């Protein structure tokens, strides 16, 4: 009994202690808020505030540097580094140097939430750029833009549909990749298309956008198959191809397309059947090689892309990170464009105030290595899409550049 009382007493004391901790919090947090308000408000009131303007502008990057998305995350982070190096060498933004803070999110949503909050609440960055995965991007969207009231730019190809005053996308979205690619596939192979995707939001939404486009150009959807992201059995797909006899397959099966293609080829159903995708960058294709001969891919960037700045971008990349290093598909150009657009927006706004920069960003244009890009009112990027075709050696050959592709996103703010 005495022991019990002692234990209850101890519990009460410690609980009280934690309670005090939480009460003490009110003062602490309001202090920090007040400080941030002062620093952000200062440049607007008085343009001459030297001690504020010398501080570096902080750009946070959340990238998957370990885990399944390492390849893309590394490319994202490196392209961001490249852009920041160039900006700093040219005198920074508004005369202030740029400090890049890169955090590894390990292809994990819980880590992403933690790192995004660290960047916003502890490092107090001015903008957060990244990540790769759709799920991690939801986490960043909520933590940074919605809860953290901080500007965020998503540089990866995605399904579209995100809409917030502080959210911007510089990756490609379905309509701008699908609209130019499908007519070319139809012309080469025929009008009957089978849609095959991994069972999650990106393939599903992309196919919903593709269907009216297919109808518009006089094509016909003969089948629609979804399998788990990492399926171990492709019987359903093989059966669907055999029975529906498509002229070409439009596939969004990012993790193991090579395995699916092998199953189809082994079953002997791929003769004369074309393939189109919107995800397979150079490093991904390297794992599949000549087996993919004849496939078409549409993305904002390939090493074989045409554009005045492509050669310079590639050589700067390999000079900094190693001769055998190449940037992957969409995310590298997305991150490079994101940082350059952010620079222009801050210069136009005259401050790093999130709302002012977001407002200035809309309508801004930038000449990227692959051509002109423009931020639309929908906060998605009007940009050049490169269409490439796999040759018999298993390497991409440039087919056509489609300049000024509209995102067709409906976000109105």
């Amino acid at each position, binding site marked *: 009994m005495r022991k019990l009382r002692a234990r209850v007493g101890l519990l009460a004391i410690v609980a009280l202690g934690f*309670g005090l901790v939480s009460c003490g919090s009110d003062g602490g947090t309001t202090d920090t808020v007040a400080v941030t308000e002062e620093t952000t408000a200062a440049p607007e009131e008085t343009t001459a505030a030297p001690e504020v303007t010398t501080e570096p502008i902080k750009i946070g990057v959340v990238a998957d540097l370990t885990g399944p998305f390492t390849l893309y995350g590394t490319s994202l982070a490196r392209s961001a580094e490249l852009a920041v190096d160039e900006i700093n060498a040219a005198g920074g933004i508004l005369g202030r140097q740029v400090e890049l803070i890169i955090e590894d999110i390990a292809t994990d949503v819980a880590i992403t939430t933690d790192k995004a909050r660290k960047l916003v609440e502890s490092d107090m960055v001015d903008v957060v750029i990244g990540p790769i995965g759709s799920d991690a991007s939801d986490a960043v969207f909520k933590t940074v833009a919605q809860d953290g009231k901080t500007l965020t730019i998503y540089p990866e190809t995605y399904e579209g549909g995100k809409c917030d005053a502080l959210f911007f996308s510089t990756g490609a979205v379905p309509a701008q990749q699908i609209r130019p690619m499908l007519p070319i596939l139809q012309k080469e192979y025929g009008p009957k298309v089978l849609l095959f995707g991994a069972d999650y939001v990106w393939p599903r939404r992309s196919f919903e956008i593709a269907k009216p486009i297919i109808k518009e150009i006089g094509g016909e959807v003969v089948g629609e198959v979804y399998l788990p992201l990492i399926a171990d059995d492709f019987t359903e797909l093989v059966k669907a191809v055999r029975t529906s006899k498509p002229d070409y397959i439009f596939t969004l099966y990012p993790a193991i397309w090579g395995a699916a293609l092998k199953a189809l080829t082994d079953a002997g159903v791929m003769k004369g059947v074309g393939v189109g995708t919107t995800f397979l960058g150079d490093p991904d294709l390297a794992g599949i090689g000549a087996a993919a001969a004849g496939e078409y891919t549409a993305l904002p960037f390939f090493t074989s892309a045409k554009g005045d700045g492509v050669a310079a971008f590639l050589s700067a990349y390999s000079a900094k990170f190693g001769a055998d290093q190449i940037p992957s598909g969409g995310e590298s150009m997305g991150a490079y464009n994101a940082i350059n657009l952010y620079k222009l927006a801050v210069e136009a706004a005259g401050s790093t105030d999130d709302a002012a920069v977001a407002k200035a960003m809309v309508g801004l244009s930038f000449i990227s290595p692959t051509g002109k890009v423009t931020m639309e009112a929908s906060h998605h990027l009007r940009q050049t899409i490169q269409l490439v075709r796999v040759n018999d050696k298993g390497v991409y050959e440039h087919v056509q550049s489609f300049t000024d592709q509209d995102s067709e996103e409906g976000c109105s703010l």
Partner: protein
Amino acid sequence: MLALSNPLVNRFSVAQKWATEFSQSRRRRATEFLLGAVLLLLPFASSDSFFIDRFGRYFIWAIFAISVDLMWGYGGMLTFGHAAFFGSGGYLVAIFTTRAGWFLPIPLWLALLLTLCVVAAFAYLLAELVFRGRMPLRGIEFAVITLALAYLLEQYARAGGEITGGQNGILFEDKLEIFNLDLHRGRGFYALAGISLLIIYLVSRSFVNSRSGLVTRGIRGSEDRIELLGYNVPKLKVGLFVMVSVIAGFAGSLFYLHDGIVSPSAVGVTASTQVLLWVALGGRGTLIGPIVGTITLQHLTATLSGTLLDTWLLIIGVLLIAVVMIFPSGIMGYLGKGSAK
């Protein structure tokens, strides 16, 4: 005397011996006080509210680790799928508070309550099936079943369409608040997590020192012997399983509410095996060890992965191997050795 060789008579003397050993474990008590003091003073030592918030997050993970320690360290039942309950806690609260239709959505407090009930009911049904079915499962069979459970739930979460939000999961709309007191961020969250951890720790400690706790440890030693002594082992196992599942579900609902998003990996195999590492590092069967292990490993991960971008995973891997080789029974297992045995 005769009693020494007869397990039936010996049962109380064995129990007493365990009890006295535990209460005499001064080093353990010293660690408890030291850890408690450091964690209580931490919020006053730093002005970075995010840094403090991060520790609150470790506390919730530590609750999860304690639940695994009760099952594995004390009950001797290795589980490879405990995140099924941790993640379900998050998913259920998210579904109850954000989905519309039938009786949903419901207020947060009700959702939390309902979540614990659902987790308990599910754990009970599963445990009845596994421990009291026609073929009761033990050891590695049980471990495989838990692994399958986590795998299945993760697949379901991915394919669950509108209900689970598929690959992207669910974004929460609610925040942790009581009477306008902000428990969602910074020191408020630290206090909420700290008090939760303290309560779960004390409850778990009194459980392992109780009669049922001693019998549970007996199951770890030799299940058959405990059964021969006349205890209803399956019933005890069912009770333990329900208890640890509810604790994990509670921790999970707090954790994902605080994070604001829950996605399929929350209920999956990777999350389930990570927690085993924290428990093993801290020392299983010690209760305080899992807390130390979780905070150490998670803080190292959070800090190193922001500074040593390319090598952090390697460093942590080497560190883990080194610790396991030098202290096979974990940090606290090593520290407590002298007095406990």
